[in-house]
């Protein structure tokens, strides 16, 4: 009686082993291909860059968002901001970094800041693309950009399981470019912080930290540009820079922003009559 039990158990185990071999080795589940979330980190950056470049061309924020979700980043906004900083540090073009930063910023703001222009006359006209874009905004304004989405029907990538209709919207939206205002400027005398640390935080009009905002720092011998959001553990709208003592700096939030001038590292009183170089903390807000 015992022998058949052993044989049956062996048959069960053998079947189990064969089943696992089939599922893991012979025909693993994703034999049709892998998903973007499984890409190697450098290829994920390439994929993210392609999303940002496509967004810069189309202004289709919903589609960019759907594509970013495929990458499975825990925080797509931070991932974009960090990649923008890495691109700058690696000496890639500022335009490339700016595309990434702009997408991060627009995702955070929840609205596109660029003109959507997916389809133009070069493409054979489609019945669904009948929206004509009339200049309904003040072309003389240097601080206004227009967002518009021509009526377009497109499949949801990548599964193509349905269609979405983007109704035409045309909004004259104040560009964040020239509108950030300095809301606070404080000297920071904390010996624990690096000497001359200039801390900048940018908020949107609802007081949410805004990543991907272009910051320009100039001084008499140079200029440096970077973006907010590189240190999301501090704040998505945070960026910093170490000032040299005795040098006057000017900070501009976005290229068209009004510069905040005459910034320099303060001298702070320390213990035992010793002084040390402190820092500055600036906050900017979109009105």
């Amino acid at each position, binding site marked *: 009686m015992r022998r*058949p039990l052993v*044989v*049956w*158990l062996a*048959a*069960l*185990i*053998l*079947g*189990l*082993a*064969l*089943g*696992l*071999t*089939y*599922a*893991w080795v012979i025909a*693993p*589940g*994703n034999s*049709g*291909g*892998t*998903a*973007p979330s*499984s*890409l*190697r*980190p450098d*290829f994920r950056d*390439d*994929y993210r860059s*392609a*999303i940002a*470049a*496509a967004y*810069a*061309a*189309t202004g289709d924020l919903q589609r960019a968002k759907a*594509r970013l979700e*495929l990458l499975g980043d825990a925080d797509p906004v931070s991932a974009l901001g960090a990649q923008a900083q890495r691109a700058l540090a690696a000496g890639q073009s500022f335009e490339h970094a700016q595309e990434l930063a702009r997408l991060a910023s627009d995702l955070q703001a929840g609205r596109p800041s660029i003109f959507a*222009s*997916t*389809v*133009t006359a*070069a*493409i*054979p006209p*489609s019945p*669904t*693309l009948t929206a004509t874009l009339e200049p309904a905004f003040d072309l003389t304004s240097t601080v206004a950009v227009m967002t518009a989405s021509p009526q*377009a*029907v*497109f*499949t949801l*990538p*990548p599964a*193509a399981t349905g*269609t979405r209709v983007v109704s035409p919207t045309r909004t004259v939206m104040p560009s964040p470019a020239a509108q950030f205002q300095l809301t606070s400027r404080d000297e920071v005398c904390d010996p624990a912080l690096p000497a001359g640390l200039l801390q900048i935080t940018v908020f949107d009009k609802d007081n949410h930290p805004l990543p991907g905002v272009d910051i320009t720092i100039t001084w008499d011998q140079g200029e440096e540009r970077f973006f907010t959001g590189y240190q999301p553990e501090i704040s998505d709208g945070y960026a910093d820079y170490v000032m040299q003592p005795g040098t006057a700096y000017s900070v501009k939030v976005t290229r068209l922003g009004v510069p905040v001038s005459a910034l320099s590292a303060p001298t702070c009183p320390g213990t035992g009559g010793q002084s040390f170089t402190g820092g500055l903390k600036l906050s900017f807000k979109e009105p």
Partner: protein
Amino acid sequence: MPRWMVGLLLAIVGAAAGIAYGRLVAPVQYVDTVPASLRIDYRTDYVLMVAERFHADHDAETAMQQLSLLGAQSADAVSGEALAFARSVSYAGPDLALLEELNRAMQALAPLPSPVRTP
């Protein structure tokens, strides 16, 4: 029921349980893959991104470079494959138009095949 049949049934049950476990409970996890291994629908969406950008700047060099990420195939083969898939799943007209535009540009840049001399 003969004993051998019980054994066979148990082996089949074990195989089914093994496949279910390997597919549903602990499926193979792919990590650090390359873009060439992406599923065809993801590859097509990537090509569509390149096409959207190409439509805006008509920078064929950059488009070719971006398409080369998808593997050793030529850029016109990659864009052609994406276009064929997009047609097969009925992508929207504007997207198909973008893919066709990119495919035409990549075909124009593709090296011509060497002429075959016939006797």
